[in-house]
């Protein structure tokens, strides 16, 4: 037995050509696992200096000061979570609406072309969304949305020298803009996966509901959604995973100020944007680079968790 998995066909001896064949395929499979483990290991080893310097407290350190060389990850972590979750809250209802429209109410003739269009949009590189955010959305935000929000909420006093969440100088960039861009970017993705999930519901189930006199919406909420709940959540988590790790769409519009967020309007940062932005100045072997790798490690662990949940939810349905 020179390889781990159950190789022997019916416990018979194998021909050398088949042994080589199997060995090389197993090796390819092993590469996948090795890549994942080495990413984890390399990030951790590279970031070890940061963890050694600041201890586990690195994760909840709120200060980020390149001059005094004091780094804490919490501002970037908070920024990442807020933008990603906000993006999801915006994109999911719209994405679900598109999916419902495409599977139920859309005229038959339009279904395929619109469905294909959505899938094609999901393939557009994120940098295109970033550019659009930078040149179109950010100016629009600073011109119209931010002044309006600031004026509307001006009466709420900020605490200390920080901003209230909806007020800030109208410069267009910040978590809200980033979240909007992320929302637009993951929208086609969420719409496409949700549509696939809805389509996977057996027609018999729906027919059953209709036969009981249910309306289309009642069939959806009463029968379809309960039947595919896991997969729907899986699609949401996949979208979240994308939003968490997205770099280029965010870098353009987040403002890149590493401070504890106190306003959706003010410049802030996400883990990915910090890594991308500070990387050019981080010399090899310094604490500066180690901190970025440590941040990468944290991002990897978080995305791993989110994606693992997504896959488990999606697979669960696939099995049943």
């Amino acid at each position, binding site marked *: 037995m020179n390889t781990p998995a159950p190789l022997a*066909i019916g416990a018979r001896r194998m021909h050398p050509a088949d042994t080589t064949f199997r060995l090389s395929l197993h090796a390819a499979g092993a590469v996948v696992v090795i890549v994942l483990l080495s990413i984890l290991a390399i990030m951790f080893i590279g970031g070890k200096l940061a963890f050694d310097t600041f201890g586990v407290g690195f994760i909840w350190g709120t200060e980020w000061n390149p001059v005094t060389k004091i780094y804490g990850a919490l501002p970037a972590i908070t920024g990442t979570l807020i933008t990603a979750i906000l993006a999801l809250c915006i994109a999911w209802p719209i994405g679900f609406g598109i999916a419902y429209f495409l599977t139920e109410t859309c005229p038959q003739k339009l279904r395929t072309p619109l469905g294909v269009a959505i899938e094609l949009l999901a393939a557009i590189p994120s940098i295109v969304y970033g550019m659009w955010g930078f040149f179109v959305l950010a100016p629009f935000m600073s011109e119209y949305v931010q002044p309006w929000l600031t004026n509307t909420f001006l009466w709420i006093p900020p605490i200390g020298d920080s901003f209230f969440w909806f007020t800030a100088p109208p410069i267009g960039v910040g978590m809200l803009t980033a979240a909007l861009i992320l929302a637009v970017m993951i929208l086609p993705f969420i719409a496409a996966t949700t549509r696939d999930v809805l389509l996977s519901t057996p027609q018999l189930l729906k027919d059953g509901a209709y036969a009981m006199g249910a309306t289309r919406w009642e069939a959806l909420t009463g029968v379809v959604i309960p039947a595919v709940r896991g997969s729907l959540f899986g699609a949401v988590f996949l979208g979240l995973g994308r939003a968490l790790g997205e770099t280029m769409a965010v870098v353009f519009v987040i403002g890149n100020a590493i401070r504890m967020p106190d306003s959706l309007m003010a410049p802030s940062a996400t883990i990915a944007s910090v890594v991308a932005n500070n990387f050019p100045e981080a010399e090899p072997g310094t604490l500066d680079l180690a901190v970025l790798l440590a941040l990468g490690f944290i991002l990897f662990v978080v995305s791993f968790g989110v994606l693992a949940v997504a896959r488990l939810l999606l697979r669960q349905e696939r099995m049943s």
Partner: protein
Amino acid sequence: MLATMTTETQSSNAPRATPLQAMRVAASAGPAIVSPTRITLEKINAFYDQKQALFDVNLEIPDNSVTAFIGASGCGKSTLLRCLNRMNDTIPGARVEGAIRMDGTDINAPEIDAVQVRTRIGMVFQKPNPFPMSIYDNIAYGPRAHKIHESKAELDEIVEKSLRRAALWDEVKDRLNKSGLGLSGGQQQRLVIARTLAVSPAVILMDEPCSALDPIATAHIEALIDQLREHTCIVIVTHSMAQAARVSQRTAFFHMGKLIESGPTDQIFTMPKLEQTQDYITGRFG
């Protein structure tokens, strides 16, 4: 003769070539006048994981004739068929015990290469399964894989001969480069038979070869089977009593993994020794 050959095999861990050479020599000996036994099954027990599918099956299968396996669904007849060319090896958890002697060699022995067995014992499946390639490439698949031919011309010859023997040549000779999937169901099944014939197997196994075909295509295949038996030993699994009666010279009846009765087809269908067989044939159960 059987006895001496048997001792030879059993005395081995002998090199793999020896029993195979024996196989070839025996195969080239030519057809006998009275059909001699080609395959002898001795105490075959088959298991899928814990479940036993065959119990102590002993059977002799004669050369140059058609042997039909009949019985209700799940009686083990297909399992036994798949034992004959070691197809069960590809199913995880499947296990076959006992000896299957062909020309004196136990082809079920672990040291015998299943791949060599399958080149001598061809198989035709329930649903026609031409590969998604041209008709020519379908037939040429076996010869190419086993390097039977020495030149392109020889390969062309093999392809034509196989298609002729499968009574398909006239229908497809003008479109050999077209996909095999474009043929009708009956033609596809004959294509698959031709593909099997291209490696000149000594035995052809057929697993309900007509169950997916209409009556006319079935008649074609049955006529073909009758021609083929001149040069080969054929084993056919069938659900149709009528088919078994039409095409086979010998019949074996299975029930719940056991061989109940076997003998000349005439005798099995007209005067079976056991009541159980009688019941099945007359349709009283199964």
